[in-house]
């Protein structure tokens, strides 16, 4: 009996060990380094001069950076909402396909990931430019009489982000919907609920953790992406990812880049905490805890 209690205490640590070690080496330590850089001075040739410097934080307070952050958050939010609106029905349909078709559909969702991200982004340039396929089609159909400015707009950025990260929305949603016990919906129907009511009262709450996971999976990389705003946005409106990249690679200002990176990480930690909290609450784990 005593032996068993002891084993139970050690077990979680043994099981968590590799994961914790991984997090320590690849997350905590690098993140700690980045955080420590924020209080030092810019080396003239890049790198860090180890002299205290509080000015980095004051500089980050410049409204210009808040503007960039707000704009990035807005575009990332729009992307996330659109991904949810498209991803939920898609995942729902896939989850209810016959097994053979299910596998096929899932591969189709993941397939784009096997192509280089940049090539896929460049493909959107081909599609969206004024001589591109989309404009040609619109003109041929007589919907417009001269090419629309599609490329180099916020719309092009959102399109690129949506396309790039939609699978990250569909997959967790699929797994959440798939796991749903069909009997629950049957019970709801038997008790007289309309399909819409069943969806709102049963399906949706029970898949909420998956929904939130999908939203975070799409929002986080959308916020940090710097290639798409450059290629599809024409670099005319940068996002926070570009800002941070430029501090490291162009201005050789690692301390300030670290301040901006830390700000983004703080936003993301808030989000992840909220997501984890909600997921726990709605998956009912709290009751068992």
């Amino acid at each position, binding site marked *: 009996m005593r032996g068993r209690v002891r084993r139970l205490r050690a077990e979680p640590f043994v099981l968590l060990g590799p994961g914790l070690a991984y997090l320590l080496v690849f997350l905590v330590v690098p993140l700690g380094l980045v955080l420590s850089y924020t209080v030092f001075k810019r080396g003239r040739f890049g*790198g860090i001069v180890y002299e205290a410097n509080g000015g980095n934080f004051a500089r980050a307070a410049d409204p210009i950076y808040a503007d960039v952050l707000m704009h990035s958050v807005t575009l990332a939010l729009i992307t996330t909402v659109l991904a949810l609106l498209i991803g939920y029905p898609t995942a729902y349909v896939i989850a209810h396909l016959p097994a053979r078709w299910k596998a096929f559909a899932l591969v189709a969702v993941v397939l784009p990931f096997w192509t280089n991200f940049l090539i896929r982004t460049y493909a959107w340039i081909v599609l969206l430019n004024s001589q591109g396929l989309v404009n040609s089609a619109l003109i041929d159909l007589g919907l417009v009489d001269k090419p629309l400015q599609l490329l180099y707009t916020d719309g092009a950025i959102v399109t690129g982000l949506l396309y790039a990260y939609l699978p990250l929305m569909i997959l967790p949603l699929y797994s959440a919907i798939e796991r749903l016990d069909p009997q629950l919906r049957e019970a709801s129907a038997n008790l007289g609920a309309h399909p819409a009511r069943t969806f709102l009262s049963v399906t949706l709450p029970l898949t909420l953790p998956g929904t939130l996971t999908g939203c975070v999976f799409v929002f986080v990389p959308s916020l940090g992406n710097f*290639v798409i705003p450059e290629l599809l946005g*024409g670099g005319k409106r940068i996002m926070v990812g570009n800002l941070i990249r430029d501090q490291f690679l162009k201005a050789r200002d690692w301390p300030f880049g670290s301040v901006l990176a830390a700000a983004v990480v703080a936003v993301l930690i808030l989000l992840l905490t909220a997501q984890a909290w909600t997921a726990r609450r709605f998956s009912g784990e709290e009751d068992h805890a």
Partner: protein
Amino acid sequence: MRRMSAATLTAALVLTLAACGGGPSSEGPAAPDQLDPSADLSKQTLTISNWDKYMPEDLPATFKAKTGTTVTVTKHATNEEVVAKLTAGGDSGIDVAFVSGQYAQALAEQGLLEPIHPELVPNLKNLSPEATQLAYDKGNKYSVPYTWGTTGLCYRRDLTGYDPDSWKDLLDPRPALKNKVTMLATERWLMLPAQKVLGFSANTQDKAQLDQVKDTLVKAKGNLLAFDDTTFGDRLKSGEVALAEAWDGWCPTDQKDIKFVVPKEGSDLWVDTMVILKSSKNKEAAHAFINDVLDPEVHGWAVSNILYKVPNAAAMAKVDPALLKNYPALAMTPADLLKGEGLVDLGDAGPAYTQIATEVTAK
């Protein structure tokens, strides 16, 4: 001048972050090593850091055949990336690096470069006399120029309907060209048109001048299709863009109606150079390598393959006339090039330039 293609942005960021080891080395400038002109080069090895496809692919093999030296090539995507490696402290293992002039200057000021020993590089005589007058390193004390060029307007004559000759054509385009112009995205060149229109130096650090530059650029942005470093050539070909700020070698003048002009307000002079690291243990071989690159045959490769001018009179004399016909910018004389303002390291004004680029692109 070579810059990262978009394809390498991510890799570059990862690498630079990975190189975040320490601050710049505090080594001061020391007396040049005594080098042995008769050293056995076959006992030496070299590691060269260069941009991708920026020298002949078979150069390591041909150099080994001549000297017996084994050459390893590592590639960098940007100046910033290789400089981060070289300044990270400790031995980078790199003997010879290809970097732009202003970066060679910065490395030399940090005492990281071995002075060039002219007696070990007899082919220096092939360099145009103008190539010793470069602002970042007068007399080529620490660097040997590899390619050089300038920045100007690349345009579709059939779409513009006239021949632009001023940076104003770009910053304040005629109504028909609205949203059909692009500017370079890399900040030194993003700033250049405004600096030249206002009559300022391309290296200005004056706060009031930089403020004016910013205002001019913010106004210009309204008429711009994009800031574009990578695809403007294709956009000109497809006709989506009628007028682009472009590096000379990147303007596809072999296409009908596409022309290149250096605006009347003047432009820059960029130079890519070869430098030898003080930490190199194989400095004789490093000099021999640079000497080999200055061979007209080897150096001329850059002209016909990357369409950049080289400061090597003997190599330029051998350029195929057909190529010059297609790419008239290659025929610019060294004297013409030197009218452009040499880009130098901005030192502590670097963040100010980034700040302006940010403010222009943030709204």
